[in-house]
């Protein structure tokens, strides 16, 4: 399913609130395979340190992107909407930069790599201006 009606509001897909909601705009989604979005680390995020945040904060952005993709895949369901979900695992995450900039638009892309509901696995990449900053494999658990 492509986003022929335009990108949905992030608030309708994620249960997160500020300052932990990092995903700001859905750019593209091919449901249920992949999703690209823009994430921003706000200055008042509790893990931000001045104008930067540890690279592992990018894993939260990727987990939120995965949650948005999961929510989009349930849009045919009349009860669809944000569901609580947890990051339950990370494998082979590489931080090409130790820190991520605060307030900058990070390009986040997740691709589904396997699923056994309520568990799902995603490959994730985070870039800034075409430069790869974080990559890795995430596992998520969505609460029914």
């Amino acid at each position, binding site marked *: 399913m492509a986003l022929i009606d335009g990108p949905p509001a992030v608030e309708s897909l994620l*249960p997160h*609130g500020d*300052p*932990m909601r990092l995903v700001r705009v859905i750019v593209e989604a091919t449901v249920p395979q992949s999703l690209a979005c823009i994430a921003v680390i706000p200055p008042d995020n*509790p893990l931000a340190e001045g104008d930067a945040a540890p690279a592992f904060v990018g*894993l*939260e952005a990727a987990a939120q992107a995965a949650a948005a993709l999961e929510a989009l895949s349930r849009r045919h369901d009349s009860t669809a909407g944000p569901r609580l979900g947890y990051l*339950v695992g990370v494998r082979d995450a590489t931080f090409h930069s130790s820190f991520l900039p605060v307030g900058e638009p990070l390009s986040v892309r997740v691709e589904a790599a396997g699923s056994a509901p309520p568990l799902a696995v995603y490959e994730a990449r985070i870039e800034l201006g075409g430069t790869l900053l974080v990559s890795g494999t995430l596992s998520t658990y969505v609460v029914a």
Partner: protein
Amino acid sequence: MGAYEILGSGPEGNGWGLAVRIPEDSALFTGHFPGHPILPGIAHLALVTRAISDWRGRKVALAGVRSIKLRRPVGPGETLLVRLSAPAADGSLGFVLERQGGEIEVLSRGTVLVSGGAGWR
């Protein structure tokens, strides 16, 4: 409103231990999730990074996460203990995060890579 309170940090066997309490009003719960506060999974990595920094005696950054398995959610007011293993030759370092108070329970475990690689201490 701080993110967490340090209760103790020091050597533990061949490794290091960091005990913290996550206050009910910790900033880490703000927005995660409204009305249903759960410690973000990445906060486990923040605690591991703090423990490594204490051990090394200066602020360190992670270069990667080889693996982490998050087994149980953490809520407000919990007391936690990060246990670090001695670093491996390749600079990787194992950890376990436990819930303290009452029955001890493993909340997460994994292996991280520290910037600077092998020989960081």
